[in-house]
């Protein structure tokens, strides 16, 4: 405010105060005349002007109740009221239910019941079984006396996906067993040029057990360490079954692949190494830093029979998978606007029986695995590369938006220089509710030249 204006304001305030003192009483009384039609006010009951206490006199009121709308307004709004009558009824019901719920402490009671679950060590959380798996629930088991060492998970979804997992952890040492049934994953064929018309489905049943050594290890209820290396060894059993969904099964659309894979059980000895370092930080989403991750998995042939579940029916393909990812970002302005870049790639080096590589083991893109604008499992081959640029900016205190684009594809050999024109593009926009410290989820849309996909998530957003 300029000095001149400040003086003006001061004069106005002083005038207001003086006016209040000099003529306030008269004005207040002058302000009270009731219209002729109004009920008479007993002047003896009206508080004297010097009385600052709340009035006890009958209040001024119009002769009859006033409507919030004039007649023409009500008429104009009538069609809208009629159309939204079902919504109004719904709102009425919701209002009464919430009043009941709040008066009877339904939410605190429910919370108390859930809070008591640690006694039994059972927690219900949303399942994370992947795209197109339906609505799922996971029961997490942490036996009270063993919760530092033993956890279990049972996940199931309305599309009949199922996963069972048990983990043992003792400092840097760990062991894990997992059984999974995926009845209707999508498959469009191999290579970057696979066609949308070749949509098929396959089921996969697998179990794996492995032992792990990690340093430094993650303590329970603590954040993951900023850097970690781990090595593991175990065995993995897998069998491809015919798809259980509405689409044709994969062996019908791809008879050659089907002939070598359907109902053929394979078992691999798995040895691997994984390492990462992560310097990302910031709020309400990570705003700066870098994460570099590398992983090597060697799937040896089942002929080694070490740690095998049982004798496999065929020789399994032997291959090594190299995976790498780099993610970085920077931000500007007070409520951070963040630009993120990420690059991920996978290369699979097949040493034995490449023709028998299971679809499930191939690198893939589409849906949650990258190129969100394409259907899950849209692209499959040995190698893949995908890059993403995203820009996250605030919309309001409790919302932010993520605008992103992705480029990538799958290849028989990623080192044979994929051409720019072979890259598939996907674009997306996500609305992300956020707290002061982290995003709470998102709802969004992604699109590509093949279609539009709606996505949402509760939690699990970076």
């Amino acid at each position, binding site marked *: *405010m300029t000095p001149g204006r400040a003086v003006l304001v001061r004069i*106005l305030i002083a005038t207001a105060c003086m006016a209040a003192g000099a003529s306030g009483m008269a004005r207040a009384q002058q302000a009270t005349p009731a219209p002729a039609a109004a009920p008479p006010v007993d002047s003896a009951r009206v508080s004297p002007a010097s009385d600052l206490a709340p009035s006890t006199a009958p209040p001024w009121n119009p002769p009859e109740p006033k409507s919030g709308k004039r007649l023409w307004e009500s008429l104009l709004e009538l069609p*809208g009221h009629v159309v939204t009558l079902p919504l109004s009824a719904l709102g009425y019901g919701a209002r009464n239910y919430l009043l009941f719920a709040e008066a009877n402490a339904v939410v605190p009671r429910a919370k108390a*019941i859930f809070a008591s679950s640690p006694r039994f060590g059972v927690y219900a959380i949303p399942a994370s079984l992947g795209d197109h798996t339906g609505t799922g629930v996971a029961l997490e088991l942490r036996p009270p006396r063993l919760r530092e060492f033993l956890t279990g998970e049972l996940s199931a979804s309305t599309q009949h996906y199922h996963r069972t997992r048990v983990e043992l952890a003792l400092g840097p040492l760990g062991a894990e067993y997992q059984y999974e049934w995926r009845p209707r994953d999508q498959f469009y064929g191999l290579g970057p040029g696979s066609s949308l018309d070749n949509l098929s489905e396959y089921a996969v049943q697998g179990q794996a057990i492995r032992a792990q050594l990690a340093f430094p290890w993650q303590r329970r209820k603590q954040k993951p360490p900023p850097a970690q290396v781990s090595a593991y060894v175990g065995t993995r059993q897998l069998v491809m079954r015919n798809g259980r969904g509405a689409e044709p099964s994969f062996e019908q659309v791809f008879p050659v692949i089907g002939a070598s894979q359907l109902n053929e059980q394979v078992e691999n000895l798995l040895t691997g190494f994984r390492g990462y370092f992560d310097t990302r930080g910031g709020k309400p989403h990570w705003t700066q830093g870098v994460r570099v991750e590398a992983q090597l998995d060697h799937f040896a042939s089942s002929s080694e029979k070490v740690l095998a579940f049982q004798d496999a029916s065929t020789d399994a393909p032997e291959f090594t998978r190299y995976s790498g990812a780099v993610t970085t970002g920077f931000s500007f302005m007070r*409520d951070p606007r963040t630009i993120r870049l990420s690059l991920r790639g996978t290369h699979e080096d097949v040493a034995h029986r490449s023709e028998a590589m299971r679809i499930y083991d191939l690198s893939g893109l589409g849906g949650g695995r990258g190129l969100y604008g394409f259907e899950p499992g849209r692209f499959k081959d040995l190698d893949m590369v995908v890059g993403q640029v995203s820009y996250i900016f*605030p919309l309001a205190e409790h919302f932010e938006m993520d605008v992103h684009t992705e480029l990538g594809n799958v290849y028989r050999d990623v080192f044979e220089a994929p051409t720019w024109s072979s890259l598939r593009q996907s674009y997306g926009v996500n609305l992300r509710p956020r707290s002061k410290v982290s995003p709470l989820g998102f709802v969004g849309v992604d699109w590509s030249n093949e279609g539009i996909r709606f996505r949402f998530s509760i939690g699990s957003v970076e």
Partner: protein
Amino acid sequence: MSRRCALVLVVLLATPSWAADATPPKETDISYFYDIFEQSLVRPMTRLLDPALWVRKATGNPRQAMNVDERDQVRLPSTWWQPRAGFRPLDAEQMLNGPGLGGPLPGRWTVTRAKTQGVTPGFFVKDPSGTRFILKFDPPACPEMATGADVVSSYLFWAAGYNVPSNSIVRFHAESLLVAPDAVVIDKRGRKVPMTDEYLKQLLSRVRREPDGTYRAMASRLLAGKPLGPFEYDGRRKDDPEDLVPHQHRRELRGLWTLCAWLGHADSRGPNSLDMWVTDGGRTFVRHHLIDFGSCLGSGAVAKRSYQTGHEYFVDYGTMTRSALTLGLVPAKWEASVDPELPAVGFIDSKTFDPKGWRPDYPNPAFDERTARDIRWGARIVAAMSDSLIRAAVEQGRFDDPRATEYLTKVLIERRDKVVQAWLAGDAQVSEQER
């Protein structure tokens, strides 16, 4: 004191039989969650699709307040509002004596039940004279913030003419509390269970203890009469024969926007109000109160206010659309704010305060109907809040840190000046757009 008691006795004896027999209106309640849902999602959508509102906007003919006279002043008497600052002479002493008789008397306080509503811990007590109070506490990270804001704001809202409870800062030792034998508390499963010393001890363990062993709290004297629940900022209490004007068209409620903007009362919503069925002055009637000012000024009750407070609603479609269209590259006003880093204050500033565009946490039906006349009515009250009134009110916050008192006083004076500059500087000309 004795004269007042005698007066009350006379009034009670003189109360005509019809008053005692009068039937109180039905108790009402507002669902916290539904209110947020309705005001944030349903009503904005309804307003967006309301053809009558389009016509009114297109023709520059907003609906003016219904309870004003030809001089554009609130018709009196009113059970909602009493002319004080801006309409009558008011000094600091009158303001400090206005809301009531102060805090609980020293001595043993009997804890009668736990506080079950709201987000801050608290409980109800009876002082040695039998007067009942509710005690509320501060979040440990922001000592003095919520209690200070509650007290300071209650004085200023009283000075502005509204009916408020008598709030004051008290300090007490845990030993001065006595749990009543019939005291109950609602447990986590929603059951009423006897309150124990252990419960009280646990509650106090979540509250900051002063170096001298005392606890600081805000004592709010329970309002006289029978509680009827909160009032809504739209519609009427239809079974109250004295409530004939839709609340959203009441000048006192529309003009309250200006006061709330000035004091940063972003939590101004139905659930923070209370109607009481009172017998006073020989009549039994409904008196309307504003309550719970723990989220005023820089306080967000459980934490300090965010920098965005007052600039946008929780769900603000306009702000979100603007940000989306500009990809967030246009900085928001609040991004220029400077945090005083005073825990007792929380966050409130004058630099980024926008006296024309201030918004509460979520839309309020009466505020949405406000016109320039309503705002100017409120601005006139704000303008009458002299420096001495503001300072006297802020001092009632009893902040240990003198910087907190100074900062809050300075910010309220500067915010007042901005309100006056924005709404009263060109008072003579009310443009068509502003009507």
